[in-house]
């Protein structure tokens, strides 16, 4: 078993928290190793709304979270412009909210709390709201405009990983944490398994950071420490196109299905919150009850959802730090929890960073890196709040797409939107490079080649996270063979194409099955016909 001692810090988990911590540590001059058992952004990072919170949602109950959010909101706008869309957001009040105590009186309280937290917000009339977002429930009685936006979590995570690597970090994906190397009360490093080769290895560093999200619970147990976490499942639905162009929230106490976010070419409604056992975290299925609930609440925000095609359903698990007194989990502050296990539990060389949310990943990373630096005696200050991420030096499609010569094609414009100012690395050398592989999402062969070459793609799901290939209306039915062939060739094993495509379609199928009726059912029948699926599908007749 090879043993490597070259690192200052090992980070477990390639979600946004781990990626941000890797970037911060690397930027402060540390030698970093990041390990991730799947691809980056496969856990909760890739399974949420993609909402760039203004913090307004937390303003009334949790001003600390609200202030954190708006600070990070402003920072992300400046450092991650390519991952963010400034859609603006609305908090709407409906006639029925009056009866449940969340009417216009509550709106006043909400506005005050927002302004106190430093969230720029103002009340507008129902007619102004309808003009600002024509899809909003027209019966609304009031609305507040807040600086919400949408954020692409895949892109944000990838940009952090890329920047960490540019600063010398070593990134090992498909590398699973097995156990700690431990001497008495000191963590010396980790034992890992390369899930593709089956090889194990050991890596040593004076500090290890547990940034494994909900799976961090198990990681901590291996170190003999207990973090009282509990998994809160959140289900979401993806609609076939952008129904709204402004984020729509319900102006009331946080509840299920009260945020509607336009992201890229789709709209997402979410979420639910249910306590689930740890065993389920790896195999989330969205239930008919969850779909029904999300639709009902979604239609209250935006009635058009009642007849809009749903592409798929998915669920993520929030890593909440448990408070046993509230079974729903809603009253828990999504506060950041940074634990130095030496002071907390007497285990040296081990830090856990958990709680928090996508919005505050950078701050979490800063806190975790501060803790690592304290342990190592490093005095470098954090610069992540002022340094733009790769791809985000210029986040505007209009200017970025000018980097191409001649007439800019749709595929090139779309690539500019996804890859930001790194788009120059996409090489359009032949006519075939310009051809679209995925026509729903305008992904060219050149962009696929770039992703395989530079963004560490191993399979089609990885490719999807970096390019949106197969994420459109047909969910890969029409393009995935082309993509599989291109990927298999680029990986040097053309014979792998069938397996790559089959794995991808299995995963798409799972998300479609929960919403298998209407046009989605037709799409499923079409997919089944094209690929001769043998698996039976079930759909809900309720």
């Amino acid at each position, binding site marked *: 078993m090879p043993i490597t001692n070259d690192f200052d810090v090992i980070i477990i988990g390639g979600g946004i928290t781990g990626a941000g911590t890797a970037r911060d540590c690397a930027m402060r001059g540390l030698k970093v190793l990041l390990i991730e058992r799947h691809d980056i952004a496969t856990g909760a990072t890739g399974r949420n709304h993609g909402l760039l919170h203004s913090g307004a949602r937390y303003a009334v109950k949790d001003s600390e979270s609200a202030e954190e959010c708006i600070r990070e909101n402003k920072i992300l706008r400046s450092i991650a412009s390519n991952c963010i869309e400034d859609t603006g957001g609305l908090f709407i009040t409906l006639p029925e909210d009056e009866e449940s105590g969340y009417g216009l009186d509550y709106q006043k309280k909400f506005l005050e709390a927002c302004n106190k937290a430093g969230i720029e917000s103002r009340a507008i009339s129902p007619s102004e709201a309808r003009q600002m977002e024509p899809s909003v429930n027209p019966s609304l009685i009031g609305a507040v405009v807040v600086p919400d936006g949408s954020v692409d979590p895949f892109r944000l995570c990838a940009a952090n990983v890329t920047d960490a690597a540019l600063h010398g970090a070593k990134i090992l994906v498909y590398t699973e944490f097995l156990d700690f190397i431990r001497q008495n009360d000191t963590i010396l490093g980790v034992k890992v398994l390369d899930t593709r080769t089956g090889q194990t290895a050991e890596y040593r560093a004076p500090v290890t950071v547990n940034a494994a999200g909900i799976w961090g619970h198990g990681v901590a147990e291996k170190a003999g420490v207990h973090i009282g976490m509990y998994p809160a499942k959140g289900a979401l639905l993806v609609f*076939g*196109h952008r129904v709204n162009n402004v984020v729509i929230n319900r102006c009331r106490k946080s509840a299920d299905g009260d945020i509607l976010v336009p992201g890229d070419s789709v709209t997402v409604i979410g979420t639910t919150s249910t306590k689930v056992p740890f065993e389920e975290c790896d195999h989330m299925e969205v239930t008919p009850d969850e779909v029904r609930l999300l639709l009902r609440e979604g239609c209250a925000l935006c009635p058009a959802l009642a*007849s809009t*095609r749903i592409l798929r359903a998915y669920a993520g698990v929030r890593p909440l730090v448990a408070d046993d007194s509230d079974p729903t989990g809603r009253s828990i502050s999504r506060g950041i929890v940074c634990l130095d296990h030496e002071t907390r539990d007497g285990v040296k060389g081990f830090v856990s960073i958990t709680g928090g949310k996508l919005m505050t990943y950078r701050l979490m990373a800063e806190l975790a890196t501060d803790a690592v630096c304290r342990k190592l005696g490093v005095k470098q200050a954090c610069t992540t709040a002022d340094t733009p991420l790769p791809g985000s030096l210029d986040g505007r499609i209009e200017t970025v797409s000018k980097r191409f010569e001649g007439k800019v094609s749709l595929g090139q414009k779309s690539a500019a939107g996804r890859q930001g100012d790194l788009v120059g690395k996409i090489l359009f050398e032949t006519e075939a490079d310009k051809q679209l592989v995925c026509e729903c999402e305008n992904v060219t062969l050149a962009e696929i080649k770039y992703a395989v070459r530079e963004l560490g793609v191993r399979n089609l799901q990885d490719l999807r996270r970096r390019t949106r290939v197969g994420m459109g*209306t047909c969910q890969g039915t*029409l393009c995935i063979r082309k993509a599989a062939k291109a990927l298999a060739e680029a990986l040097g094993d053309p014979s792998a194409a069938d397996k790559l495509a089959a794995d991808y379609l299995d995963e798409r199928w799972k998300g479609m099955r929960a919403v298998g009726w*209407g046009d989605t059912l*037709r*799409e499923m029948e079409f997919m089944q016909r094209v690929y001769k699926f043998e698996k039976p599908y079930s759909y809900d007749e309720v």
Partner: protein
Amino acid sequence: MQERNISSNNFEQCQKCSLCETVCPVMKNNPDYAGPKRSGPDGERYRLKNGIFFDDSLKYCLNCKRCEVACPSGVRIADLIQQARIDFSHKAPKLRDIMLASTDQMGPVAGAFAPIVNFTLGLSPVKGVLDFALGIDHRRTLPKYSSETFVHWFKKNAASKQASFRKQVSYFHGCYANYNYPQLGKDFVAVMNAFGFGVQLLENERCCGVAKIANGMIPAATRDAHANMEAFRKSVAQGLDIVTVSTTCTMTLMEEYPELLKVDNSDVKDHISLVEQFLYKAIASGAVKPVWKEGWKARAAYHCPCHQERLGLGIFTVELLKMIPGMQLTELDSNCCGIAGTYGFKKENFKVSQMIGKALFDDIAAAAPEFVACECETCKWQIEMSTGVPVKNPVSILAEALDLEKTSELNRA
């Protein structure tokens, strides 16, 4: 769980099966055109996100609507493309496009000087100038103008007799019958009168607006649409249904008004019919009876215009023509002739226009008919120019084949 899962955003029904791409005549012949699926439903998803994703190549769509006929999911693909052009193409129409599109403004001017205009437009130096200065292709035979409009003729020669008929219809003649080919209008009046229908003109009929829509002149087209709707409503209120002779005008009145111009026509739509449909139903139901000329014989080939196919009305013409005892009719394969209204007149489209039409031209050559039967005036220009075979409107064919006097006697009772 969704009670209605048919979205009003019709593009959502697209399953990406790509059948539309297999029938698009432009895609086969112009590699710069992304095709109906990508320009329509695919493009729409991205245009909803950001107008920057509007692609200039949408101008190559000739709006033949074959994609809509082919679509198994009922997506209004061509409408999506036209709508995107309306919403996102902010280039001002060129002088040429305005001239080509303003059929009812150019008509009266050209008609007043018809002999000079027709002579001049036929001269090759003039065509060279039109080509160079305006971008109207010099190889194109330009439609001729008539010195007397149909409306003028009608008021002078026919209007006074119409009141004597028990049954009455309103006639939407369109710009072509009025300015370019009044004989078609005359044939229409003769045939309708023979079957016992009096013909009335609509009050202030305007151009249907199709050429204006195609050339991005939406406010002007919308004004025309409102004026026409007002005329239709008056007609319907008086109990007169509206009968049309032009396929494309009819499609515009029936489909494009509500879909693209957002002009509601639901109250009169059911009262508008194309003449072939109107007559077939009248004859088939026994409401009117034809008497055919003894010994009239013809060998014809029927070309169904794209928009006739979109309306699903080609079958009426075929069945109507088959009623003529001396008619030997070949039904040509479904193909676009390539002209698509003003599209083929434009220099940049001429080559593609002729490439698209080739399959049809070859079929016509193989069938070697005496003439081609076709309801559409621009198909007529294209086919006559490209094959040399004359094209006749079915109404004109009826006017020839019917014994008009005996038919009128029979239907007078």
